[in-house]
């Protein structure tokens, strides 16, 4: 009898003991000692710095937590795939992450069009995307249950810019926007903000993504004699526009959105054109160590590379990584995608090192933090 019972019980006992491990084995991207995360962004081409700087900042955070033993004993391993800021490549990368690499979650995708093109794959397999580098409404409204934003929206950035420009007497505002989902979102935001004060842009010109062919747009904008020009593209395109625009002997205030890649823009601009270029930002000032998250970021950077230069994109990467680490920690020792998303939803109104943001089932707006900065002098420094 006993013998029979043992023979019957043994498989059940084995199942009970192995159940959690089997469950992990079935959960993509979760290994006994690792958590696999995927990031698709531009690492080469004319927008390469957008991805590189964000990845650098995230690296510092992941390296630190891994050095301390990881999250619940698991090391965070990140796989990077280059999409060159092209939607089709981002879509292909996402499919590879899910089908081939079997990642647990996706993280830090850079760009609106790239995120939009990856949405079908995310939704088909239920893979969460944490802290994408886009402020577009399309991933905020209506709420996409798989996307968790950290940064503020472009519409908030634009509202702040318009408020600032009108306050200081720059009424004639022109816009040069990328001919894709990002540009459309920014144009909508500008029309909305100006519409509230019954105004319209004095010029609306498009440029192509990853293009430096901006002479015609510069000429047309110059003809409209604006007081300010809002640029909605990445750093290489914007630097090209600014150079062409200034050649036309114009002095309108130029503003860029946070997505531009502030440090990269500064590097891409000729020295004599740097001073006074405005950039709206969605992260705290990277040189202001009064905020704990900035202090941690600075320390992490200096520990890893004493010569590293602080920047807005790398700080965003660091903060995004901290959000992911926090959520993974709260997902517990046996993480699943559902547990990760539940942990993120339960963060509600929270903060990362003093940087407030909110995320819940009904609200994925991320942070509402926006601020204005200006390039100062020729050394690539910023005023805020």
């Amino acid at each position, binding site marked *: 009898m006993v013998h029979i019972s043992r023979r019957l019980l043994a498989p059940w006992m084995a199942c009970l003991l192995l159940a959690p491990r089997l469950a992990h084995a079935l959960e993509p991207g979760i290994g006994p000692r690792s958590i696999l995360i995927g990031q698709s962004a531009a690492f080469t081409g004319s927008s390469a710095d957008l991805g590189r700087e964000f990845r650098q900042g995230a690296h510092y955070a992941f390296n630190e937590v891994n050095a301390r033993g990881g999250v619940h004993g698991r090391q965070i391993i990140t796989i990077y795939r280059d999409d060159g800021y092209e939607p089709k490549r981002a879509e292909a990368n996402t499919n590879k992450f899910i089908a081939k690499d079997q990642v647990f979650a996706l993280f830090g995708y850079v760009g609106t069009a790239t995120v939009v093109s990856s949405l079908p794959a995310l939704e088909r397999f239920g893979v969460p995307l944490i802290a994408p580098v886009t402020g577009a409404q399309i991933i905020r409204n209506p709420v996409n249950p798989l996307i968790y934003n950290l940064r503020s929206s472009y519409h908030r950035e634009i509202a702040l810019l318009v408020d600032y420009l009108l306050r200081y007497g720059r009424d004639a505002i022109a816009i040069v926007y990328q001919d894709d989902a990002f540009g459309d979102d920014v144009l909508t935001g500008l029309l909305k903000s100006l519409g509230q004060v019954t105004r319209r842009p004095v010029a609306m010109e498009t440029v192509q993504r990853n293009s430096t062919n901006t002479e015609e747009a510069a000429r047309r904008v110059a003809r409209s004699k604006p007081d300010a020009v809002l640029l909605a593209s990445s750093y290489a395109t914007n630097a090209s526009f600014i150079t062409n625009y200034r050649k036309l002997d114009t002095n309108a205030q130029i503003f860029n959105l946070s997505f531009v890649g502030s440090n990269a823009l500064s590097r891409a601009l000729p020295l004599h054109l740097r*001073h006074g270029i405005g950039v709206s930002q969605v992260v705290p000032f990277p040189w202001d160590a009064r905020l704990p998250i900035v202090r941690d970021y600075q320390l992490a950077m200096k520990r890893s590379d004493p010569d590293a230069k602080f920047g807005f994109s790398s700080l965003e990467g660091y903060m995004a990584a901290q959000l992911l680490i926090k959520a993974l920690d709260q997902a517990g020792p046996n993480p699943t995608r559902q547990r990760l998303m539940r942990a993120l939803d339960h963060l509600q109104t929270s903060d990362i090192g003093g940087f407030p943001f909110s995320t819940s089932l009904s609200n994925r707006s991320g942070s509402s933090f926006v601020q204005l900065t200006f390039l100062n002098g020729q050394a690539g420094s910023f*005023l805020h």
Partner: protein
Amino acid sequence: MPSLEQLPVGLALFLIYSAFFAITVAALLLSRRFSSHKHSILQPGLLSPLGSLYIFTTAFLLSNVIFQTNNLKTAVTQEVVTFSKLGAVLNVLPQQQRVEGRRLLFDYAYSITHDEATTMKQGLRSDASEAALDRLREFLSSPSAALPAAPIITPESSNYLRRASDFSFDLIDARERRLSLSSSSNSPVLWLSIGVMYFTFAFLSFSVHRGAMTLIWLAFILLFAFPVPAVMLFLYSNPLAAGLYDLTSQFAPILARNM
């Protein structure tokens, strides 16, 4: 006709040396004519007091312009400090006001390094800097530079208005001091007096010496040594144009600072 300080430094130095050369040749020719008339009443003993007079006069003038250059350096340092202080004081303003204030402040600093630093070499003011300073003053005199109705009182915000006011007027003072101290102290009367003293000394030197080789060597020595204080006087009279003092590098640290 442009004055000496409005010419490129190299050309101005060439003209100074040419003038000394011309005076030396004139003194030599006149001394030959003088000695041919057998009027040998001049004694070598006169050389010492004449040389001393030349040296003392030029040294006195030189010490004055070096002192003025040092004052200019101090004034510029003080101006840079005032920029930093005003930039820091604006920190207590709400975000949009703060960034506008700092933008205008550092636009002015930038215009000094890129416009006024150039015009000052010709002893001129810069219209661009004037306009940038006016825009900053306009901002500081507007409600935009005022604290919100119910500010949080901190050590910085409690004295904000007084400090911002002091520093903005200090900026005006500093600019005037900088422009005044950097304006060239070259005076035609001074140059004429140096020229007359040199001519007298050279004439006496040539008159009390004999022999072609001796006179040639004497001319060389005079031309090597005596223009030096005059050249130094010219360079220190306008240290910006001479490249002895770089205004841009003084402002570079505040323009390279993330604030």
